[in-house]
């Protein structure tokens, strides 16, 4: 097979529809008789519920129903644990407290749903909130992460006697022994705070139970349509085949849309079963801040032990992680932090230990980066500190400790996010560092540019941060490829799409296998009626795991095409080629048959087919990676700090990355750009400000700032390709690459710019105000 389309920078199949209003998003679904839901939410972060009286609201014209937890009867129960805890780690503590459909006895975070109003319009539903009498007794809140674990803290779950949700320790080698041999030991506290995923499209659903067909159709902004179907069928006591979940075009995911059995999903499903009418709920932006999951709150106490010449002997990282009010998503985030702290470096001894705290804040689940940025931040900050202490160049200390290209596969000695030992499959880490150095002009900057600009009084600095990215985890994905009688090729896979260009990159894979143009490949993602086996789009796995399943299904169809064509053309298979949608004899191009004709022949209307054969030109295949594939890269930036306003301008940003085989560099670039933008946001703009009562103070896009076009630097990208041996295409994920190293790099660059002022920055996100405070030690 000659690769023709995979690897090419081609335009996306889906764009014409997205550009001209021809793409269906959940809020575009209109069904006659559709009702609208709204949720009355708690103003308090922690409160006992004395009573909720919705009787007046039920009388309001246009209100169809109002439900509180009390109305749900037996249906009310804590939701499913969505990810198991990694019990392969010894002595693990996990106190399961999963999200509930609505607050019943107690409110545990501001924004938790108290009542669901279903009405003829959203306007009426929201007006009806005023008619609901809610009697809450406010309780002291456990809002501060560290204080939540201190004795005497207000408890979210009195029966636990503590806010401790989990405790996990992993150890590779002996840090204590390494420390005793070290020339230098450095210790610091590092803090990373919460941000929002803030997809442009808020969450939204339409649930429709049709009593005459006994089927439920769901349009959802979900990253995991199949899992949503299975979970909802289970909760409702329906057969999985009675529930169809469609994730149509989705306006960005970034993690939180992987959450399942959320209060809104549960209430809409339960209500449509009772009312037999379609019900829509579209989250508004304030609800997105209050009731969509978030991430990043961690506090690390870190120690690094080194030799005098800058070799790392060991690292100890003891941290606490904020899981918010519930822990439905178990330990994915802090486990990712653990497994990304060592990054691209050889760390012979590693002690990593964390406690997870329940707090009166929104739940924490993965947000683009998913624990990785914290681990990278910790490692990179400690290396910067060590370089300073030892009088070394920041790039030299990194190069000296990197895992070398001949050391793969490289077992890491701890349990990874797929619950088996973390093994780096492949990579060339020094090459990413070297490439980024050259791209940013590192030597030139520190030797010439920076001294010259400093002499002019300009506060300019440079940062370089290296990272690994665990991607493409199992368990599996599948796909079905079908040649239609039109000659076009249909592909269906279970993962959902939130802007990753699957309609194009998946089409490229099939186009190569089946010998058609990518524009003749019609891809369906995220519709359980079209394909109902799979897991979802998360952990930068869609392109690699679903992509390889599609590649296998394409190969399966190719085999069927050649077998049938061989018979019809009376030519051995090896003498056939598939070009431009037709099979032809290699030396005699006029002896050919189109794929459409073949598809018709493969599905005869009369006569008999050979026993043992399957009709049609179709193949369904699955791909299950042995374990996740690890991408890597180095980013670098040059910044200038305004000494009066403490605004930071990123003058230049480069990133050298390695995600193995690229399916479409246009799409890969876009993924990196977006990740970088989120990383810049979580370096300097985006911090969810909770007060001591657990109130979110900046729950809108006017106060919580996403980077705008005027804030973003141009981004230069360098591509390296170390194919992964874990899958036939050799690909690795890249969806989170930009977000992972950027805060570490930004803080290093700002610290470098402020060199001489004695400022050490061990936290992110920053802000102009926070920088002012650090410089003036307030």
């Amino acid at each position: 097979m000659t690769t023709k389309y995979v690897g090419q920078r081609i335009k996306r199949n889906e764009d014409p529809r997205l550009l001209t209003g021809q793409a269906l998003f959940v809020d575009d679904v209109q069904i006659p008789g559709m009702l609208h839901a709204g949720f009355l939410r708690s103003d308090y972060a922690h409160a006992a519920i004395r009573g909720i009286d919705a009787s007046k609201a039920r009388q309001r014209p246009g209100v169809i129903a109002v439900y509180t937890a009390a109305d749900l009867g037996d249906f009310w129960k804590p939701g499913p644990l969505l990810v198991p805890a990694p019990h392969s780690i010894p002595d693990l503590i996990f106190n399961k407290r999963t999200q509930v459909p609505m607050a019943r006895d107690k409110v545990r975070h501001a924004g938790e749903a108290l009542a669901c109003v279903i009405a003829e319009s959203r306007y009426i539903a929201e007006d009806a909130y005023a008619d609901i009498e809610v009697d809450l007794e406010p309780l002291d809140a456990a809002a501060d992460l560290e204080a939540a674990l201190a004795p005497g803290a207000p408890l979210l779950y009195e029966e636990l006697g503590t806010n401790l949700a989990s405790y996990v320790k992993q150890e590779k080698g002996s840090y204590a022994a390494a420390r005793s041999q070290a020339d230098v030991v450095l210790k610091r506290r590092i803090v990373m705070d919460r941000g929002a995923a803030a997809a442009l499209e808020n969450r939204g659903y339409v649930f429709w139970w049709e009593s005459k067909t006994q089927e439920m159709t769901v349009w959802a902004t979900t990253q995991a349509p199949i899992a949503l179907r299975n979970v909802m069928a289970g909760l409702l006591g329906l057969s999985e085949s009675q529930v169809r979940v469609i994730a149509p075009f989705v306006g960005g995911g970034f993690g939180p849309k992987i959450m399942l059995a959320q209060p809104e999903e549960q209430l809409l499903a339960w209500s449509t079963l009772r009312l037999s009418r379609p019900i829509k709920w579209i989250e508004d932006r304030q609800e997105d801040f209050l009731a969509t999951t978030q991430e990043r709150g961690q506090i690390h106490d870190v120690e690094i032990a080194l030799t005098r010449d800058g070799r790392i002997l060991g690292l100890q990282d003891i941290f606490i992680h904020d899981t918010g009010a519930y822990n439905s998503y178990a330990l994915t985030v802090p486990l990712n932090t653990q497994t990304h702290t060592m990054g691209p470096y050889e760390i012979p001894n590693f002690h990593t230990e964390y406690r997870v705290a329940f707090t009166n804040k929104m739940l924490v689940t993965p947000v683009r980066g998913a624990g990785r940025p914290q681990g990278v931040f910790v490692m990179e900050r400690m290396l910067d500190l060590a370089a300073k202490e030892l009088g070394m160049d920041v790039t030299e200390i990194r190069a000296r400790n990197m895992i070398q290209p001949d050391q793969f596969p490289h077992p890491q000695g701890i349990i990874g996010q797929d619950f088996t030992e973390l093994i780096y499959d492949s990579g060339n880490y020094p090459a990413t560092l070297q490439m980024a150095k050259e791209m940013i002009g590192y030597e030139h900057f520190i030797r010439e540019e920076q001294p010259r600009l400093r002499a002019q009084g300009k506060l300019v600095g440079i940062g370089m941060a290296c990272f690994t990215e665990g991607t493409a985890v199992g368990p599996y994905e599948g796909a079905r490829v079908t040649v239609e009688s039109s000659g076009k090729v249909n592909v269906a896979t279970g993962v959902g799409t939130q802007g990753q260009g699957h309609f194009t990159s998946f089409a490229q894979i099939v186009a190569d296998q089946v010998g058609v143009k990518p524009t003749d490949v019609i891809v369906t993602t995220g519709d359980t009626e079209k394909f109902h086996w799979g897991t979802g789009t998360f952990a930068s796995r869609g392109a690699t795991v679903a992509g390889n399943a599609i590649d296998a299904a394409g190969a399966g169809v190719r085999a069927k095409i050649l077998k049938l064509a061989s018979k019809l053309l009376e030519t051995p298979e090896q003498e056939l080629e598939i070009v431009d949608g037709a099979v032809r004899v290699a030396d005699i191009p006029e002896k050919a048959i189109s794929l459409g004709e073949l598809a018709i022949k493969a599905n005869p209307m009369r006569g008999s087919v050979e026993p043992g054969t399957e009709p049609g030109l179709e193949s369904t295949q699955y791909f299950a990676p042995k374990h996740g594939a690890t991408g890597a890269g180095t980013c670098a930036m040059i910044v200038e700090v305004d000494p009066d306003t403490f605004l930071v301008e990123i003058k230049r940003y480069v990133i050298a990355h390695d995600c193995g085989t690229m399916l479409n560099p246009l799409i890969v670039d876009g993924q990196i750009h977006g990740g970088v933008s989120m990383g810049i946001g979580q370096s300097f703009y985006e911090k969810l400000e909770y007060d001591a009562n657990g109130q979110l103070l900046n729950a809108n896009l006017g106060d919580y700032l996403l980077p705008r076009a005027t804030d973003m630097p141009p981004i230069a990208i360098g591509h390296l390709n170390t194919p992964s041996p874990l899958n036939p295409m050799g690909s690795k994920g890249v969806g989170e690459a930009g977000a992972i190293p950027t805060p570490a790099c930004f803080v290093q660059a700002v610290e470098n710019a402020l060199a001489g002022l004695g400022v050490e920055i061990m936290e992110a996100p920053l802000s102009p105000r926070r920088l002012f405070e650090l410089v003036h030690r307030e």
Partner: protein
Amino acid sequence: MQPKVITLKVNGRRHAVASMPNVTLLYALRDLGYTDVKNGCEKGDCGACAVLLNGKAVNSCLVLAWQADGAEIVTNAGLGTLDRPHPLQAAFADTGAIQCGYCTPGMLISAKALLDATPHPSDGEIREALSGNLCRCTGYDHIIEAVQLAAERMGE
């Protein structure tokens, strides 16, 4: 509150709509089927709902439907069609300026308003003109490139 019949002229078509005084132009347009106008924040912060109102780019979530009575409104879908895309739409596809596509309609409207007033904008002018449109997927790089490309092609 009583409804009033208003006239909305959208993408060259006239609609007579019985509208309540508290209905925003965003909701009115979406109810008419102009679902290319996206709801992102309803506070004027994100720009996803931008439309041209008498030639000026506005956030339709901050305009009441009654205020648009009789006005000429152009949404992104009014710029071009699948067969005959506007140069901006074509450039967005050519440069990979779209990912999830949710901010795209508003981006196109702001870009259109910019090019109407400034046919050959600088990088800084483009960034400024799009600074009211948030994008979470693309980091803006390809979008800026798309507007530049469209400006070049339209100037030819």
